[in-house]
């Protein structure tokens, strides 16, 4: 018909073209889709698909707004599985299966969706294999899709956030290349991957050129699923040739390459030689509020005020990483990295303020910060150690200089959002701002003449970590401490007593409630009675065996590696600890999202049945370990 511009269809085609995987369709295919689609409006909170309800008759593509996908657990709790927003689709599996819908989909805000009728979508999928594969792909790749969409739309972000476009691939390499020769057996490779906790292994030839790659996915699908002999040379199952990228290429090009090839690992090469591997997760972290970005922001600031502004973003990292499936322990490490950078930056600012220090010094952090297990911002726990002065005059000068220095640092950290420590474990307290000699004496006294009260509060000093600049001061101190602590049974017994001081609430699953009154009635303290005892128990065991790691997970690894603890027990504890931290983090995130102050008080009624069961097992593990320790140190006799 003349005079009939198809402008609404054109709007639809334009929209689809901007969104993966619809951009894989040719223009005539898109026009066919547009011709038969309809546009529906769903006000905020409207259910769109219902669990157990009729299957979807159309594929829904969100034109504007967002939806929440959730399932109801057996005890009617809503578990949110995913959120989808503009350009993303839902209803595909429900539509394709044609049986009852398996999840609830509801509009989170006012949402507009394009509806594409089932027969038409099926026709497109039959006619375009690439499209079919893409649309069926697991939602794990949605991050990358999203990123690409943004790129296509020319989404202009503030300069600091366009790291995908400015950062070379080599900046993303965070560990040295782990490789092996093609004649290694599959088993050898698998063992190495497990021990190093890596998800891929590069196979190189005699010249260090990558000839193939094996990922944990390959081990599953090509070895286990096929029942292949684990003693076969790895060359038989490696993916070859390996897709590589030059280390000077931009992160964005790596992303494109992964997307185009449908892979998650890329070999990074320097003049043809393999130098490392980057994964889709590395790139994911570059998106949006990534931790790397905050860390970079920190380096660029030149005053306390600017620093505190750039740090406001840091609070958003935890939920983000959490959403991306990061382990609580990785979150802790990232947070520690950011805190360290902030502190290092402040130290240079302080030196600028007060002039060069009279003696080398080292800023140290204690407790959870020392263990890299901090999550939401907590109090400052820090101290300062400086080189021993040569004479009284120098001692006097150093005392005065570092007193002012530490005072300034305390204020600056507070301005950056780290509240002062109520227990005054801060370098600004003269007691914790001392030359190396004094620090050595402190530790000697704590170890050789332990007193119950002291054992309690000195524990945080045994988790010390050097931030800089003169880290050798702290390392020498640690060497001395760990050497002395090993075999000091009375001291260790005191620490052990601390570790069994708080028992886990084993009875809570039988409706025993722990806090019976006060503001935290009907809850229990997840840190004090769950993760805390594990930290304490692992610390004692690590000190007992002279292990100098401070991070709980790393201590467990070291204990297992040296044979000081059976590997199964170490792994059980690791999982238990990760689980407890996860629960704690989730609880705190929940509070923060409601603008409450994060705390550790969990109401057992408010968690799912599965979490309750796991929690019970976790507490049983803690209780068992406490019993072991109690027996080993013969604590009953000590009393």
């Amino acid at each position, binding site marked *: 018909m003349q*005079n*009939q511009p198809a*402008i*609404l*269809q054109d*709007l639809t085609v334009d929209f689809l073209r901007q969104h993966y995987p619809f951009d894989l369709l040719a223009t005539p295919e898109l026009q066919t889709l547009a011709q*038969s*689609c*309809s546009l529906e*409006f769903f006000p905020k909170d409207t259910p769109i698909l219902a669990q157990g309800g009729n299957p979807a008759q159309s594929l829904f593509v969100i034109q504007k707004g967002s939806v929440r996908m959730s399932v109801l657990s057996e005890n009617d709790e809503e578990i949110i599985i995913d959120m989808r927003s503009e350009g993303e689709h839902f209803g595909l599996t429900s539509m394709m299966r044609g049986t009852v819908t398996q999840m609830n989909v509801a509009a989170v805000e006012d949402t507009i969706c394009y509806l594409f009728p089932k027969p038409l979508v099926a026709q497109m999928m039959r006619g375009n294999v690439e499209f079919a594969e893409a649309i069926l792909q697991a939602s794990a790749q949605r991050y990358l899709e999203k990123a690409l969409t943004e790129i296509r739309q020319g989404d202009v972000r503030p300069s600091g956030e366009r790291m995908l476009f400015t950062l070379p691939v080599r900046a993303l390499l965070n560990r040295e290349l782990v490789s092996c020769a093609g004649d290694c057996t599959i088993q050898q490779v698998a063992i190495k991957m497990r021990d190093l906790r890596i998800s891929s292994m590069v196979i190189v030839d005699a010249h260090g050129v990558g000839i193939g790659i094996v990922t944990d996915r390959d081990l599953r699908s090509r070895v286990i699923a096929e029942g292949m002999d684990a003693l076969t040379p790895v060359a038989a199952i490696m993916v070859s040739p390996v897709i590589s990228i030059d280390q000077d290429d931009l992160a964005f090009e790596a992303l494109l390459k992964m997307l185009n090839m449908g892979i998650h690992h890329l070999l990074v090469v320097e003049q043809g030689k393999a130098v490392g591997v980057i994964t889709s997760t590395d790139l994911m972290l570059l998106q949006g509020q990534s931790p790397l970005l905050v860390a970079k922001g920190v380096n660029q600031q030149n005053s306390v005020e600017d620093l505190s502004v750039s740090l406001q973003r840091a609070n958003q990292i935890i939920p983000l990483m959490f959403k991306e499936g990061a382990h609580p322990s990785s979150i802790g490490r990232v947070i520690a990295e950011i805190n360290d950078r902030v502190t290092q930056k402040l130290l240079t600012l302080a030196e600028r303020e007060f002039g060069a220090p009279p003696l080398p010094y080292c800023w140290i952090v204690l407790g959870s910060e020392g263990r890299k297990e901090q999550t939401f911002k907590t109090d400052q726990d820090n101290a300062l150690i400086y080189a021993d002065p040569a004479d009284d005059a120098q001692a006097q000068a150093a005392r005065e200089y570092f007193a002012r220095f530490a005072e300034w640092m305390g204020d600056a950290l507070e301005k950056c959002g780290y509240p002062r420590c109520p227990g005054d474990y801060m370098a600004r307290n003269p007691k914790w701002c001392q030359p190396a000699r004094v620090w050595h004496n402190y530790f000697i006294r704590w170890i050789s003449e332990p007193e119950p009260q002291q054992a309690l509060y000195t524990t945080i000093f045994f988790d010390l970590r050097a931030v800089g600049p003169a880290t050798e001061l702290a390392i020498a101190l640690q060497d001395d401490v760990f050497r002395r602590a090993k075999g000091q049974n009375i001291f260790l017994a005191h620490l052990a007593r601390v570790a069994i001081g708080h028992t886990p609430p084993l009875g809570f699953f039988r409706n025993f409630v722990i806090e019976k009154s006060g503001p935290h009635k009907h809850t229990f303290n997840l840190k004090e009675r769950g993760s805390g005892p594990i930290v304490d128990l692992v610390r004692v065991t690590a000190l007992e065996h002279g292990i100098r790691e401070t991070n709980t997970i790393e201590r467990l690894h070291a204990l297992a590696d040296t044979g000081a603890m059976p590997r199964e027990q170490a792994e059980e504890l690791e999982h238990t600890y990760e689980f407890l931290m996860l629960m704690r983090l989730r609880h705190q995130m929940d509070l923060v999202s409601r603008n409450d102050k994060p705390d550790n008080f969990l109401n057992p009624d408010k968690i799912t049945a599965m979490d309750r069961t796991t929690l019970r097992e976790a507490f049983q593990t803690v209780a068992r370990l406490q019993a072991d320790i109690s027996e080993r140190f013969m604590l009953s006799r000590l009393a």
Partner: protein
Amino acid sequence: MASVLEGLQRRLELWNGKYHYPITDARFCVIDTELTGLDRNQDAIIALSAIRMSGARILIGETFYSLVNPERALARDNVLVHRLRGDDLADQPTIQNALEKFAEFIGDDVIVGHFVQIDLGFLKRDFQRHLGRALNNRWVDTQRAHQWAFLQEQQFLGGYGMQSIENTEANLFELARRYNIRVHGAHHALYDAFLAAQVWQRVIVTLRDLGVRRLRDALRVAGG
């Protein structure tokens, strides 16, 4: 006399069961026209557009758009609004041709539009004049529906002494802004109809919340 009877009959139809079904089961045609001016004695239709809706769903593939040769010089003001010049329209179909196709497209769907009585005035005139028959489709005015819903809320709020001083009359673009609807291009009859269709989607929800769920009730409060 005939028209009085017809009017009575139309009103009676609202009482018998004829339109007693959910709004979401109705078929609508959201329309918009462009005119050379607002004087029904001398002005003409120069563009006609319509988009079909199945209940609250906008059917993207079912649209109608036609320019019309007004067979007279265009007033300068309107040229500025529509960016349509006499030359653009010289080769376009006559009003009779365009209306025949338009009538075929809308069938007996319920007509929806923003301030739709203005469009209806011209359409009814030209249906009589060029097709020799009346345009008798049922209609809903999104502006009236919005205004009605607004007044209901005012009465409710008034009971709590919270009357808002917001203006009840709103043009299409103001409403689009209020409903947070993306505006693609203004003063093209089809884009405007698309906008009105999206406003109608929102108004249907508002009406539903106020208890207006059946087509009959929507026709009563905001149409005819």
